C-alpha cells in the first residue's frame, strides 16, 4: 500500500465482457512495458473460483473518484465507457518495479491492488497527474456521482479479501516429456 505507481493502460476488448491491457509507465514512445491487466464484468467475475477472486480488484472507487481517466477523450464519451468500467473487476500483474529504481525487470511478478477508498492515494502523485493532464479529480468525481459499482456490491473476496498477496518462487522437479525419453539427459 505504501508503494504506488502511475500506470498507463492500453486496452482492447476481447468481447463485451472482457478487456486485456498492456501497462506502461508513461504514455511516451520510450515507455517501459511494466505489466498487464485483465478486466472483466461482474458477471464473469462471479464465475471465478473463490481461490482466484482475491487476485482481482474492484474498479468502483478508481472510476468514481476521478483518478481513472481516458486522456484526450471528451467527458461525455469517456463517461459512457467508465460507467461500465465502474462495475468491473481487474487482475493486474506488474513485472517491472520502476518505482523502486529498477533499470531492468528484476525479480518476481507482483499482483497489484487498486485504490479502493479516499485517503490511500499520495496527494503528490495525484496533483502531479492533474497538472500534467489538466484534469481535476474533484470535478470528475461530481460528474461521475451518478455511476454505480457492481450490482451485487463489491465482492468480499475481491481486493485480496482485505489482506495482502505476495508471490513466492519455488523450485520444482522437472517433468520429463514422454516422447523424448530417448534423448540423453544433460544434467551434470
Amino acid at each position, binding site marked *: *500500500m505504501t508503494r504506488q505507481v502511475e500506470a498507463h493502460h492500453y486496452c482492447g476488448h476481447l468481447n463485451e465482457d472482457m478487456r486485456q491491457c498492456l501497462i506502461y509507465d508513461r504514455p511516451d514512445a520510450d515507455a517501459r512495458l511494466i505489466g498487464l491487466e485483465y478486466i472483466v464484468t461482474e458477471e464473469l467475475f462471479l464465475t471465478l473460483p473463490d481461490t482466484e477472486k482475491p487476485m482481482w480488484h474492484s474498479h468502483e472507487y478508481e472510476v468514481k473518484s476521478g483518478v481513472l481517466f481516458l486522456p484526450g477523450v*471528451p467527458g461525455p464519451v469517456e463517461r459512457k465507457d467508465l460507467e461500465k468500467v465502474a462495475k468491473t473487476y481487474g487482475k493486474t500483474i506488474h513485472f517491472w518495479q520502476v518505482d523502486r529504481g529498477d533499470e531492468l525487470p528484476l525479480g518476481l511478478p507482483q499482483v497489484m491492488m487498486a485504490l479502493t477508498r479516499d485517503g490511500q492515494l499520495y496527494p503528490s502523485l495525484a496533483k502531479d497527474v492533474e497538472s500534467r493532464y489538466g484534469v481535476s479529480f474533484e470535478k470528475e468525481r461530481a460528474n461521475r456521482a451518478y455511476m454505480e459499482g457492481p450490482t451485487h456490491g463489491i465482492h468480499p473476496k475481491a481486493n485480496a479479501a482485505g489482506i495482502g498477496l505476495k508471490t513466492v518462487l519455488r523450485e520444482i522437479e522437472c517433468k520429463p516429456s514422454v516422447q523424448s525419453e530417448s534423448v540423453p539427459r544433460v544434467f551434470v
Partner: protein
Amino acid sequence: MASSDKAPDSMPVGDGSVPPGKPLTMGHQVIDKSAQMLQTLKPIKQMSQHVCTFAVYGHDMSRQIEAHHYITRVNQDFLQSAVYDSNDSSAHLIGVEYIVSDRIFDTLSHEEQKLWHSHDHEVTSGMWVNPGVPEMIQKSELENIAHTYGKFWCTWQVDRGDRLPLGAPALMMSPQVVNMGVIKPELVRVRDNKFKISTEELRKQRANFAVSKPGNARAADYWMHTGKGFAIDIEHVEMKMLEGPKYP
C-alpha cells in the same frame, strides 16, 4: 494457489468460448473508435516485429505452446514484448517477455539469472520466426537475438483450458536441443503449415550463426543444469498500510 496448480477449480462451461461473454456491442465499438482517433497510443505503436516461436512451462515441461511476440526494440541491448497465443485480432494476451543482450545479462545477479532462458538454440533451430519476412532481411536481427536472454511470464494458461486468466503467473522456458526442451514435432508442423514455412529449412540456413554459449558463469536455463524448474506461489501477507495521515 500456485502457477503449478494442476487444474483450476471448475468454472461454468457455458458455450465454451474463451473468454466467456457477449459479442462487442455497437456502443462499445463506437467508443473504442473515438478513443483511437483522439489518443496518440505511442507506446504500442513502437511494436515493430511479430515473432512466432515456442515456449515451455517451467513448472511442467510437458506443456509447450506456440507463442506470438509483438516486440518493441527499446535499444541495442533491450527488447520488450507482449505475448499472444495467436496472430489473430481475437488473440489472447498471455504474457510478457523481456529480452536482454548477453552484455546486460552478465550484469544480473546469479539469483536473477536463474529466471531467464537463452535464445541461441531457439534461433538457430528455426523455431524463432518472423512470419512473412524474408530470412535475408531478418538476418542481422536474428543474429542479435541469438545472443540474447529472455524472461517470459505467462499470465493466462489457455492451453490448460482456462477460459479466464487464472492463478499465479508462470515462468516459461525456451526450446532447447535436449530432452524436455525439445518441441513436439506436431506443434512445429502445425505452425509451419499455418505460415507456409519450413523450420527445417531455416535451421539449415541459420547453421552458421555465431552463438553465445551459456558458459558456466551464466545461470540461465536453470532446469538444464539442475533438473529443476520454478513455480510461483501466491501467499497471503499482512499488507503494509499507510502510516496515519502523514504522507508527502
